[in-house]
């Protein structure tokens, strides 16, 4: 019989070893899954985790790592504040979409302006505002009416997707697009474009923003009163109130941060890698970022690493789809398994596993 015994102190070893163990466990479980699908597990794992970086076509796939990691890291960092405080914004996907719409909308309103000094920062700001606004809706509803933010933020994803679909064929539709849905391509709009900063790296302004955000979030969480308030609220809401934290204000700030970060990510994406507002603009970064946030232990540096890892699985999944004929959906499942494994291994942080017959009833 196995049983769990609560530790007097959370284990600092497992706090950091758990994500690594989770990755290993996921590879193992994933291997079983691939074997069940009739694929060689070792080859599949290598194709997903190794080939995108060092394989035959790595020169093509490697830049994609930063391209995909940037939005994941940005969104996950934003989410991590709320998650730490027990505020469950799971609608980052919608906030990401709204950021893209607002940012692209701002930029396209001035088309064909050449004032990049004005258009590009302005569009980023609008992206921020769009995401923030979308994130604040569930925030305000929670503070004002006690509405469950998990459900309202998630519902707003579907609303945002419909708005996106409408925008692609309505307000933001390319007037020169010969009737095809989708906005003008921002890659061909120099004032708004989010270009690759160094050829072959995949690094664009979103990557810069993600790195700055990691540093900023680190400082705020470890050194600033706000970070302390967030952590205290997450661990003991009553204690936080006693310590003088205004819970409503904290909810609004956290929702604004997570929405804003997702919104910025949305704009960088639409103005760069994606290029245009179209019905299939969003690919689920907002949901994957939840996994990134947890895998990264809600810690900025952890999120940076987790974001890179999840980005790798995206690219690896695409490579595997091509070379091994593995369905793309496998990766989604794989990501879900990663979260499960982490939560499972995580039990070791707070509990000790004891062998032998349970002495406790």
């Amino acid at each position, binding site marked *: 019989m196995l049983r769990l015994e609560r530790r007097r102190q959370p284990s600092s070893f497992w706090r950091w070893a758990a994500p690594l163990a989770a990755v290993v466990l996921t590879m193992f479980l994933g291997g079983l899954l691939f074997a069940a699908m009739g694929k060689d597990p070792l080859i599949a794992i290598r194709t997903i985790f190794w080939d995108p970086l060092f394989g035959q076509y790595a020169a093509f796939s490697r830049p994609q790592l930063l391209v995909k990691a940037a939005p994941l890291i940005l969104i996950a960092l934003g989410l991590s504040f709320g998650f730490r405080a027990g505020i469950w914004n799971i609608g980052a996907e919608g906030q990401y979409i709204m950021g893209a719409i607002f940012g692209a909308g701002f930029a396209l309103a001035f088309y064909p302006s050449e004032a990049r000094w004005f258009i590009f920062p302005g569009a980023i700001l609008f992206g921020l505002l769009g995401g923030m606004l979308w994130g604040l809706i569930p925030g305000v509803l929670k503070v004002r009416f006690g509405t469950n933010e998990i459900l309202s933020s998630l519902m707003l994803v579907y609303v945002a997707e419909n708005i996106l679909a409408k925008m692609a064929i309505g307000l933001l539709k390319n007037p020169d697009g010969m009737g095809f849905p989708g906005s003008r391509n921002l890659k061909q709009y120099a004032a708004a474009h989010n270009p690759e900063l160094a050829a072959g790296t995949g690094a664009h302004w979103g990557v810069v923003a993600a790195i700055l955000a990691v540093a900023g979030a680190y400082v705020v969480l470890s050194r*600033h009163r*706000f970070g302390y308030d967030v952590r205290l609220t997450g661990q003991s809401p009553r*204690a936080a*109130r006693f310590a*003088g934290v*205004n819970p409503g204000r904290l909810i609004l700030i956290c929702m604004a941060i997570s929405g804003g970060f997702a919104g910025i990510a949305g704009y960088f994406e639409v103005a760069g890698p994606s290029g245009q507002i179209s019905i299939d603009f969003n690919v689920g970064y907002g949901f994957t970022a939840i996994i990134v946030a947890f895998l990264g232990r809600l810690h900025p540096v952890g999120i940076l690493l987790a974001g890179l890892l999840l980005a790798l699985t995206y690219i690896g999944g695409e490579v595997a789809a091509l070379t091994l004929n593995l369905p793309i959906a496998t990766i989604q499942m794989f990501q879900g398994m990663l979260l499960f494994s982490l939560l499972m291994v995580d039990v070791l942080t707070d509990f000790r596993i004891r062998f032998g017959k349970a*002495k406790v*009833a």
Partner: protein
Amino acid sequence: MTSTLLELDGLTKTYPGVVANDDVSFAIRKGEVHALLGENGAGKSTLVKSIYGLVKPDRGTMTLDGKPYEPAEPRQARAAGIAMVFQHFSLFDALNVAENIALGMENPPALRDLAKRIRDVSEQYGLPLDPSRVVGDLSAGERQRVEIIRCLLQDPKLLIMDEPTSVLTPQEVHILFETLRLLRSEGTSILYISHKLEEIRSLCEHATILRLGKVVGTCDPRATSARDMAEMMVGATLHVPEKADAAAGEVVLSIKSLSAPAPHQFGTALRDISIDVRAGEVLGIGGVAGNGQDELVAALSGEMRTRTGTISLNGTPIGRMGPNERRAAGLSAAPEERNGHAAAPDMSLTENALMTGAVPMGLVERGFLRWAKARSFAEDIIKTFDVRTPGPQNAGRSLSGGNLQKFVIGREILQRPKVLVVNQPTWGVDAAAAASIRQAILDLAADGAAVVVISQDLDELMEISDRFSALNEGRLSAPRPARGLTVEQIGLLLGGAHDMEVAHVEA
């Protein structure tokens, strides 16, 4: 047939790092009220949980009515005729009285029949109770009645009562004792767990005293002095806090017509509370739990805002201020619940020191935390108040209840507040820690602070208060000098017996 009902022989139970029960043996006779006496942490709870089948002892045997008794779960214990009233009631707030009682029975009758039986039994034992009321709305005394009736409906041979009087007014205690004596006369044995010596002397005919998991003595409480029992229990002579007589100074904290609605469904509204507290005095506020203590602390600490002018500190209205503004103005508070309210169990002691010390101790500068300073503040608390811990990096939950409480109280006292409000400062704290906490509170008052102590422990209040006032259904009685108050007078101040009459006791 012997006259022994339950015999314990060599019961031992160890937890990692603690021996909760060490070779405990004693016997409970039929129809006796047997006291189990000991401090917090002496192993009383573990022992009764073993009898009730919630804990499986590592070694030792139990014999019930001459037959081996080894309950694997509470169900078996109940089937064998053992019933238990828990210290922290095992009740379900959202369910009604009858449903709660049905849950504690093996084969309950249909709810309608059960309701009738509840009425019958409650009348027979003088414990009126309406089966259809939702338990969350009941007072602590009424909630205890639910538990007792739940036990009585099973015709137990042995009734275990874990600290039953800690939530009762003196009158309610009186009624409870009548009920217990009636049960005894009917042949039911009662295992009565307490650390209140006078109660045990008036009720029990046999006592077993536990210390650090071991039986350290037995006695006949009717023939033993409280002092002797206390020394057996604590193992040393107790230090009684010294109270210096000091002339009260200026009014520091002034509350005028403070009313506030109940903050949640099962909370209590504050009604028209007015009182002045002077520099250098300790105001003791007594009352049964759930009569507005938490709400009063919240209103004073700033967790709950009130109208301007209802609360003022040195003449400045502070009713609209948040907790940190009040701390900056010199008002500190320590709520009852240590874990998750006054302290964050999963955070380090340094971080816990920051909780309230951030503003008054200058631990935050332009929004940024000064960790080194916070750490030395935490070290200061640990040193000054003798908190037993390896260091400030340890999590709050790694401390024992008494040590964490010393940390919490110490944290507030070291901020040198002009007013300190504490709720249940020594609840669940061992005697030595309790004595040092009380002394610290008295020292603070002696240095000129106004102190408000809210407690359900009347002995504690009598020991440290200059004036006494009682909180009853959100109302605060006019304060009286504490010296010379009798238990009966206090009982009346506490609002009597909550419409509970000793009705129809057929002894």
